[in-house]
Protein backbone atom coordinates (compact mmCIF):
# COMPACT_ATOMS: atom_id res chain seq x y z
CA UNK A 1 0.00 0.00 0.00
CA UNK A 2 1.20 3.49 -0.84
CA UNK A 3 1.29 6.16 1.92
CA UNK A 4 -1.80 7.86 0.40
CA UNK A 5 -3.68 4.55 0.44
CA UNK A 6 -2.63 4.00 4.05
CA UNK A 7 -3.90 7.46 5.03
CA UNK A 8 -7.25 6.88 3.29
CA UNK A 9 -7.59 3.46 4.90
CA UNK A 10 -6.81 4.92 8.35
CA UNK A 11 -9.41 7.69 7.89
CA UNK A 12 -11.98 5.15 6.63
CA UNK A 13 -11.40 2.88 9.63
CA UNK A 14 -11.53 5.85 12.03
CA UNK A 15 -14.87 6.99 10.55
CA UNK A 16 -16.21 3.45 10.80
CA UNK A 17 -15.09 3.16 14.45
CA UNK A 18 -16.50 6.58 15.42
CA UNK A 19 -19.84 5.79 13.77
CA UNK A 20 -19.98 2.38 15.40
CA UNK A 21 -19.25 4.00 18.78
CA UNK A 22 -22.07 6.53 18.35
CA UNK A 23 -24.45 3.81 17.17
CA UNK A 24 -23.67 1.59 20.16
CA UNK A 25 -23.20 4.15 22.95
CA UNK A 26 -25.82 6.82 22.28
CA UNK A 27 -29.32 6.42 23.63
CA UNK A 28 -30.75 9.02 21.21
CA UNK A 29 -32.22 7.63 17.95
CA UNK A 30 -31.08 10.62 15.87
CA UNK A 31 -27.49 10.17 17.06
CA UNK A 32 -27.67 6.45 16.25
CA UNK A 33 -28.88 7.25 12.73
CA UNK A 34 -26.05 9.77 12.26
CA UNK A 35 -23.61 7.16 13.61
CA UNK A 36 -24.79 4.65 11.02
CA UNK A 37 -24.31 7.32 8.33
CA UNK A 38 -20.74 8.01 9.49
CA UNK A 39 -20.05 4.24 9.48
CA UNK A 40 -21.35 4.09 5.92
CA UNK A 41 -19.07 6.96 4.90
CA UNK A 42 -16.12 4.95 6.28
CA UNK A 43 -17.12 1.92 4.22
CA UNK A 44 -17.50 4.05 1.07
CA UNK A 45 -14.05 5.61 1.59
CA UNK A 46 -12.55 2.15 2.01
CA UNK A 47 -14.22 0.90 -1.19
CA UNK A 48 -12.85 3.90 -3.10
CA UNK A 49 -9.32 3.08 -1.86
CA UNK A 50 -9.65 -0.55 -2.96
CA UNK A 51 -10.85 0.61 -6.40
CA UNK A 52 -7.28 1.66 -7.17
CA UNK A 53 -5.71 -1.63 -8.17
CA UNK A 54 -2.03 -2.60 -7.88
CA UNK A 55 -1.50 -1.71 -11.57
CA UNK A 56 -2.77 1.85 -10.97
CA UNK A 57 -5.90 1.34 -13.10
CA UNK A 58 -9.28 2.10 -11.53
CA UNK A 59 -11.69 -0.76 -10.92
CA UNK A 60 -15.22 0.50 -11.76
CA UNK A 61 -17.01 -2.16 -9.67
CA UNK A 62 -16.32 -0.60 -6.22
CA UNK A 63 -17.26 2.83 -7.64
CA UNK A 64 -20.61 1.43 -8.77
CA UNK A 65 -21.06 -0.22 -5.36
CA UNK A 66 -20.42 3.11 -3.64
CA UNK A 67 -22.96 5.04 -5.72
CA UNK A 68 -25.53 2.31 -5.11
CA UNK A 69 -24.65 2.46 -1.42
CA UNK A 70 -25.06 6.23 -1.26
CA UNK A 71 -28.53 6.08 -2.79
CA UNK A 72 -29.59 3.28 -0.42
CA UNK A 73 -28.12 5.26 2.52
CA UNK A 74 -30.13 8.36 1.59
CA UNK A 75 -33.32 6.31 1.27
CA UNK A 76 -32.71 4.48 4.55
CA UNK A 77 -31.84 7.74 6.35
CA UNK A 78 -35.03 9.39 5.10
CA UNK A 79 -37.11 6.45 6.27
CA UNK A 80 -35.23 6.42 9.60
CA UNK A 81 -35.94 10.12 10.14
CA UNK A 82 -39.63 9.60 9.38
CA UNK A 83 -39.70 6.72 11.91
CA UNK A 84 -37.96 8.87 14.56
CA UNK A 85 -40.47 11.71 14.04
CA UNK A 86 -43.36 9.28 14.22
CA UNK A 87 -42.16 7.63 17.46
CA UNK A 88 -41.62 11.09 18.98
CA UNK A 89 -45.10 12.35 18.14
CA UNK A 90 -46.61 9.03 19.26
CA UNK A 91 -44.84 9.15 22.64
CA UNK A 92 -46.08 12.75 23.20
CA UNK A 93 -49.75 11.73 22.85
Amino acid at each position, binding site marked *: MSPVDLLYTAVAVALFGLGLGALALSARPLKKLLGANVMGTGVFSLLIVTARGPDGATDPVPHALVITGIVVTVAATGLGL*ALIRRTRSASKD
Partner: protein
Amino acid sequence: MTVLVGVGFALVSLALFAALVATPEAPGLGALARSEIAATGVSNPVTAVLLDYRAYDTLLELVVVLLAAVAAGALAPREPAPAQLDGPVAEAAAGLLTPGIVLMAGYLLWIGSKAPGGAFQAASLLAGGLILLEVTGKTPPPRSEAVTRAVAGLGVLAFLGVGVGVAVAAANGVFLDHPASIAGSLILAIESAATLGIAAGLLALFRAGTASA
Protein backbone atom coordinates in the same frame (compact mmCIF):
# COMPACT_ATOMS: atom_id res chain seq x y z
CA MET B 1 -18.04 2.46 31.58
CA THR B 2 -18.58 4.57 28.46
CA VAL B 3 -14.83 5.30 28.35
CA LEU B 4 -14.05 1.57 28.55
CA VAL B 5 -16.44 0.77 25.69
CA GLY B 6 -14.94 3.67 23.71
CA VAL B 7 -11.43 2.25 24.21
CA GLY B 8 -12.81 -1.12 23.09
CA PHE B 9 -14.11 0.40 19.85
CA ALA B 10 -10.76 2.13 19.27
CA LEU B 11 -8.98 -1.23 19.68
CA VAL B 12 -11.43 -2.92 17.30
CA SER B 13 -10.76 -0.14 14.76
CA LEU B 14 -7.00 -0.61 15.13
CA ALA B 15 -7.34 -4.36 14.61
CA LEU B 16 -9.51 -3.68 11.54
CA PHE B 17 -6.87 -1.30 10.17
CA ALA B 18 -4.12 -3.87 10.74
CA ALA B 19 -6.18 -6.56 9.00
CA LEU B 20 -6.85 -4.25 6.02
CA VAL B 21 -3.19 -3.32 5.66
CA ALA B 22 -2.19 -7.00 5.83
CA THR B 23 -4.72 -8.05 3.16
CA PRO B 24 -2.91 -8.70 -0.13
CA GLU B 25 -4.05 -6.55 -3.04
CA ALA B 26 -6.29 -8.42 -5.47
CA PRO B 27 -6.43 -7.67 -9.21
CA GLY B 28 -10.18 -6.91 -9.00
CA LEU B 29 -12.61 -6.91 -11.91
CA GLY B 30 -11.33 -3.74 -13.63
CA ALA B 31 -9.62 -5.54 -16.52
CA LEU B 32 -12.67 -7.74 -17.21
CA ALA B 33 -15.01 -4.72 -17.02
CA ARG B 34 -12.87 -2.85 -19.56
CA SER B 35 -12.39 -5.75 -21.97
CA GLU B 36 -16.15 -6.37 -22.33
CA ILE B 37 -17.23 -2.73 -22.47
CA ALA B 38 -17.94 -2.71 -26.22
CA ALA B 39 -20.99 -4.92 -25.64
CA THR B 40 -22.57 -2.57 -23.07
CA GLY B 41 -23.39 0.38 -25.35
CA VAL B 42 -21.65 2.91 -23.06
CA SER B 43 -18.02 3.90 -22.62
CA ASN B 44 -18.07 4.97 -18.95
CA PRO B 45 -17.13 1.76 -17.09
CA VAL B 46 -19.08 2.76 -13.95
CA THR B 47 -22.27 3.20 -15.99
CA ALA B 48 -21.52 -0.13 -17.70
CA VAL B 49 -21.35 -1.83 -14.29
CA LEU B 50 -24.53 -0.13 -13.04
CA LEU B 51 -26.76 -0.57 -16.09
CA ASP B 52 -25.34 -3.65 -17.79
CA TYR B 53 -23.07 -6.02 -15.81
CA ARG B 54 -24.92 -5.51 -12.51
CA ALA B 55 -28.29 -4.25 -13.79
CA TYR B 56 -30.09 -6.40 -11.20
CA ASP B 57 -28.49 -4.43 -8.34
CA THR B 58 -29.50 -1.11 -9.85
CA LEU B 59 -33.07 -2.29 -10.47
CA LEU B 60 -33.36 -3.38 -6.83
CA GLU B 61 -31.81 -0.09 -5.71
CA LEU B 62 -34.60 1.80 -7.47
CA VAL B 63 -37.06 -0.47 -5.66
CA VAL B 64 -35.37 0.46 -2.34
CA VAL B 65 -35.84 4.20 -3.03
CA LEU B 66 -39.49 3.63 -3.98
CA LEU B 67 -40.18 1.49 -0.88
CA ALA B 68 -38.49 4.02 1.43
CA ALA B 69 -40.51 6.89 -0.09
CA VAL B 70 -43.81 5.00 0.21
CA ALA B 71 -43.05 3.84 3.77
CA ALA B 72 -41.97 7.32 4.92
CA GLY B 73 -45.10 8.80 3.32
CA ALA B 74 -47.26 6.31 5.21
CA LEU B 75 -45.63 7.35 8.50
CA ALA B 76 -45.83 11.09 7.96
CA PRO B 77 -48.67 13.38 9.06
CA ARG B 78 -51.07 14.51 6.34
CA GLU B 79 -50.55 18.28 6.53
CA PRO B 80 -47.99 19.73 4.09
CA ALA B 81 -45.33 21.95 5.67
CA PRO B 82 -45.44 25.74 5.27
CA ALA B 83 -42.56 27.51 3.51
CA GLN B 84 -39.44 27.39 5.66
CA LEU B 85 -37.42 30.00 3.79
CA ASP B 86 -39.24 33.14 2.85
CA GLY B 87 -38.28 36.64 1.88
CA PRO B 88 -37.22 38.21 -1.42
CA VAL B 89 -33.63 36.85 -1.38
CA ALA B 90 -34.65 33.19 -0.95
CA GLU B 91 -37.38 33.53 -3.58
CA ALA B 92 -35.10 35.23 -6.11
CA ALA B 93 -32.34 32.67 -5.47
CA ALA B 94 -34.75 29.79 -6.03
CA GLY B 95 -36.02 31.41 -9.23
CA LEU B 96 -32.51 32.05 -10.56
CA LEU B 97 -30.92 28.75 -9.56
CA THR B 98 -33.63 26.25 -10.50
CA PRO B 99 -33.32 26.55 -14.31
CA GLY B 100 -29.55 26.05 -14.07
CA ILE B 101 -30.02 23.07 -11.74
CA VAL B 102 -32.47 21.41 -14.14
CA LEU B 103 -30.11 22.05 -17.07
CA MET B 104 -27.14 20.64 -15.14
CA ALA B 105 -29.17 17.56 -14.16
CA GLY B 106 -29.97 16.95 -17.84
CA TYR B 107 -26.29 17.34 -18.72
CA LEU B 108 -25.19 14.88 -16.01
CA LEU B 109 -27.78 12.36 -17.24
CA TRP B 110 -26.55 12.71 -20.83
CA ILE B 111 -22.79 12.66 -20.12
CA GLY B 112 -23.11 9.56 -17.88
CA SER B 113 -22.64 7.21 -20.83
CA LYS B 114 -19.07 8.38 -21.45
CA ALA B 115 -17.84 10.33 -18.40
CA PRO B 116 -18.62 10.56 -14.68
CA GLY B 117 -22.34 11.26 -14.32
CA GLY B 118 -25.54 9.29 -14.73
CA ALA B 119 -29.02 8.83 -13.36
CA PHE B 120 -28.17 9.04 -9.64
CA GLN B 121 -26.10 12.18 -9.89
CA ALA B 122 -28.71 13.80 -12.14
CA ALA B 123 -31.55 12.74 -9.84
CA SER B 124 -29.92 14.03 -6.66
CA LEU B 125 -29.27 17.38 -8.34
CA LEU B 126 -32.83 17.55 -9.68
CA ALA B 127 -34.21 16.61 -6.26
CA GLY B 128 -32.07 19.39 -4.74
CA GLY B 129 -33.67 21.88 -7.14
CA LEU B 130 -37.18 20.61 -6.35
CA ILE B 131 -36.48 20.82 -2.60
CA LEU B 132 -35.18 24.39 -3.04
CA LEU B 133 -38.53 25.29 -4.63
CA GLU B 134 -40.37 23.38 -1.90
CA VAL B 135 -38.71 25.20 1.03
CA THR B 136 -39.26 28.61 -0.57
CA GLY B 137 -42.99 27.91 -0.81
CA LYS B 138 -43.19 27.41 -4.61
CA THR B 139 -44.45 23.82 -4.33
CA PRO B 140 -43.00 22.12 -7.44
CA PRO B 141 -44.84 19.44 -9.38
CA PRO B 142 -45.69 16.64 -8.81
CA ARG B 143 -47.86 18.25 -6.10
CA SER B 144 -50.12 15.44 -4.94
CA GLU B 145 -48.78 12.51 -2.95
CA ALA B 146 -50.32 9.97 -5.33
CA VAL B 147 -48.72 11.52 -8.44
CA THR B 148 -45.34 11.83 -6.68
CA ARG B 149 -45.47 8.12 -5.84
CA ALA B 150 -46.50 7.27 -9.40
CA VAL B 151 -43.52 9.19 -10.80
CA ALA B 152 -41.27 7.53 -8.20
CA GLY B 153 -42.39 4.18 -9.62
CA LEU B 154 -41.50 5.29 -13.15
CA GLY B 155 -37.84 4.27 -12.93
CA VAL B 156 -38.68 0.79 -11.66
CA LEU B 157 -41.37 0.34 -14.32
CA ALA B 158 -39.10 1.48 -17.17
CA PHE B 159 -36.26 -0.75 -15.97
CA LEU B 160 -38.59 -3.77 -15.64
CA GLY B 161 -40.29 -2.98 -18.94
CA VAL B 162 -37.02 -2.85 -20.87
CA GLY B 163 -35.71 -5.92 -19.02
CA VAL B 164 -38.78 -7.99 -19.87
CA GLY B 165 -38.93 -6.48 -23.37
CA VAL B 166 -35.43 -7.65 -24.33
CA ALA B 167 -36.18 -11.11 -22.91
CA VAL B 168 -39.37 -11.46 -24.96
CA ALA B 169 -38.16 -9.80 -28.20
CA ALA B 170 -35.16 -12.07 -28.89
CA ALA B 171 -35.41 -15.81 -29.46
CA ASN B 172 -33.06 -16.68 -26.59
CA GLY B 173 -33.56 -13.42 -24.74
CA VAL B 174 -32.54 -13.14 -21.10
CA PHE B 175 -34.11 -10.74 -18.56
CA LEU B 176 -32.09 -7.47 -18.42
CA ASP B 177 -29.63 -8.69 -21.07
CA HIS B 178 -29.64 -5.68 -23.43
CA PRO B 179 -28.58 -6.57 -27.00
CA ALA B 180 -25.29 -4.78 -27.80
CA SER B 181 -26.65 -3.02 -30.93
CA ILE B 182 -29.31 -1.00 -29.05
CA ALA B 183 -27.90 -1.16 -25.50
CA GLY B 184 -26.80 2.51 -25.53
CA SER B 185 -30.30 3.78 -26.36
CA LEU B 186 -31.95 1.39 -23.90
CA ILE B 187 -29.60 2.53 -21.10
CA LEU B 188 -30.33 6.20 -21.86
CA ALA B 189 -34.08 5.48 -21.78
CA ILE B 190 -33.81 3.61 -18.46
CA GLU B 191 -31.60 6.32 -16.96
CA SER B 192 -33.98 9.11 -18.05
CA ALA B 193 -36.93 7.39 -16.38
CA ALA B 194 -34.76 6.52 -13.35
CA THR B 195 -33.68 10.17 -12.97
CA LEU B 196 -37.30 11.34 -12.75
CA GLY B 197 -38.21 8.39 -10.53
CA ILE B 198 -35.37 8.83 -8.02
CA ALA B 199 -35.86 12.61 -7.90
CA ALA B 200 -39.58 12.09 -7.15
CA GLY B 201 -38.67 9.48 -4.52
CA LEU B 202 -36.24 11.86 -2.80
CA LEU B 203 -38.80 14.69 -2.94
CA ALA B 204 -41.41 12.37 -1.37
CA LEU B 205 -38.91 11.45 1.39
CA PHE B 206 -38.23 15.16 2.02
CA ARG B 207 -41.95 15.98 2.15
CA ALA B 208 -42.58 13.09 4.54
CA GLY B 209 -39.82 14.45 6.78
CA THR B 210 -41.03 18.06 6.86
CA ALA B 211 -44.81 17.64 7.02
CA SER B 212 -46.15 19.36 10.13
CA ALA B 213 -48.06 17.26 12.63
